[in-house]
């Protein structure tokens, strides 16, 4: 079950000389991150995940009134934050391993019965996610490289969800994924948000953010250039903020 956690970014400075930013990611909301490539939105996501130390400020995680400062990626993982990397080939899949092993790697401990691995149990866990994400993989024991990009991404998402996270940080999750698969993923994301999970989605496509997110944070020069939600969030306003023009 998802238990509600809230992320607070406090006076976060991403680059020396930048304006500090304050943000709160609440349970059940989908927050989009936009910006021209390399303008700090990816850095912001990595700071939330504990992969990068900010120049100044901190990220606090709040769970039932208890606050924890995220100082490292391990601490973020231990506290229910899961990060899905952008570069699937370089930092996502294990090309030499099977679909099943790729799915299970974050949660190998869950397959152990009295310390010994139960492959039946692993298979059962995988089948649950395969149905939910409609992963199209005829053989779970085939190498993951035999799958299409979209299905590889679904396996990675299954891996992340198997950790039963309370907050999901997605770095361009539909990059190189076909349109049909995208809509499956959107439905999954919305379902997770309804269960109370907070999602932060970095996307290089504005359309995606408009369709999926409750609000968007637009970055420019490693600073938060604009924050929009509801009707104020349109292709024109987001693009204007990305290029640093007043809309």
């Amino acid at each position, binding site marked *: 079950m998802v238990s509600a956690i809230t992320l607070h970014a406090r006076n976060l400075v991403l680059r020396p000389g930048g304006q500090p930013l304050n943000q709160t990611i609440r349970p059940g909301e989908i927050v989009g991150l936009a910006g021209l490539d390399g303008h700090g939105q990816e850095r912001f996501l990595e700071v939330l995940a504990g*992969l990068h130390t900010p120049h100044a400020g901190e990220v606090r995680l709040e769970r039932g009134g208890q606050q924890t400062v995220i100082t490292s*990626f*391990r601490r973020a*993982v231990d506290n229910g934050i*899961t*990060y899905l*990397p952008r570069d699937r080939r*370089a*930092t*996502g*899949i*294990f*090309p*030499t*391993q099977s679909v099943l*092993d790729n799915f*299970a*790697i*974050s949660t*190998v*401990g869950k*397959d*152990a019965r009295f*310390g*010994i*691995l139960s492959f039946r149990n692993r298979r059962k866990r995988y089948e649950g996610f395969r149905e939910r994400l409609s992963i199209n993989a005829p*053989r779970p*024991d*085939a*190498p993951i*490289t*035999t799958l299409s990009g979209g299905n590889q991404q679904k396996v990675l998402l299954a*891996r992340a969800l198997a*950790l039963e996270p309370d907050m999901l940080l997605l770095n361009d999750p539909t990059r190189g994924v076909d349109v049909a698969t995208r809509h499956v993923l959107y439905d999954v994301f919305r379902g997770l948000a309804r269960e109370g999970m907070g999602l932060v989605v970095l996307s290089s496509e504005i359309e995606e953010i408009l369709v999926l997110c409750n609000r968007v944070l637009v970055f420019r020069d490693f600073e938060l250039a604009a924050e929009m939600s509801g009707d104020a969030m349109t292709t024109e306003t987001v693009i204007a903020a990305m290029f640093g023009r007043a809309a």
Partner: protein
Amino acid sequence: MNTIRLANIRRSLGFGALLLVVLLAVNLYLNPARFHPAAWGTLIGLAAPLIGAALASTPVILSGRGGIDISVGPLMGFVNAIIIQTLFLKGGVESPFVIVPVALLVGAGIGAINGFLTTIVRIQPIVATLGTYLVLTGITLTIVPAPIGPAPQWIKAFAGPLSIIPLAVIFLAWWLIRRLPYYDLLMAIGSDDRAAYTAGVDVTRVRFAAYVITGVFAGMAGLMLTALIGSADPNIGQTYTLISIAAVALGGVSLAGGRGGLIGAAIGAIDIFLLQSVLTAFNVSTYVLQVAYGAILVAAVVLTAVQERANRRERNA
């Protein structure tokens, strides 16, 4: 399921297994008496320390990111010296229930030092274990400046056919490890440690454990070495270092990590042993033997790379 698994096994053993068959046939032809099935027990005894050293070298290599332990050979010599000189000759300890645990614990301790240097201090594995290599060689020479004997009777009993027992123990231990969640993590960090890290795997701890496992296996190999030579010799251990890594490479274990296993490493070691026999049958000098090792090693690595490229093309097609 099975066809894919079989294909994987074939792919990982590939060249080493083929070489094994060829070399065995050549040996049987050249030297029928020595390779008569009745003599296989003795042969295994002769090959056991090399096989043990190759098995010990494998876990750290599987852990990837240049993981390698060149101190396996000297560690075997160090264990050999401690058992014979310190425990048996000076301490009068003969019981296997003391000697075996001490050997394994010394191995685990040195493995932990290597693991600490490479994963926590983050020195490159080849440099860190080169340091351990030199230190262990020096200490071994201090303990036993010259060959000295004898060894306890029960150890010498493991020189012949019975040398299969310590090897079986290592395989059994590995078989158990393969059934632990740990094995998946080890192969994952060997395959791609950045991906493993972002997937939430504690890369440092998994890799550290690989060095300890290598140390324990090397302790066992040290016992096998002691059984074979029936004495303490400060100059033998190191000779196993490079040859065991050659065996591992020959056995299809990728030196980049994440691919291969103990069976491949054992086959590679047997290949090298058989190659020794062939060349000895031709009465070539030991210098030529060195040249042959080197040539075989390079050929093996090249062929493995060629094979992998072919496999990748097959997979992408």
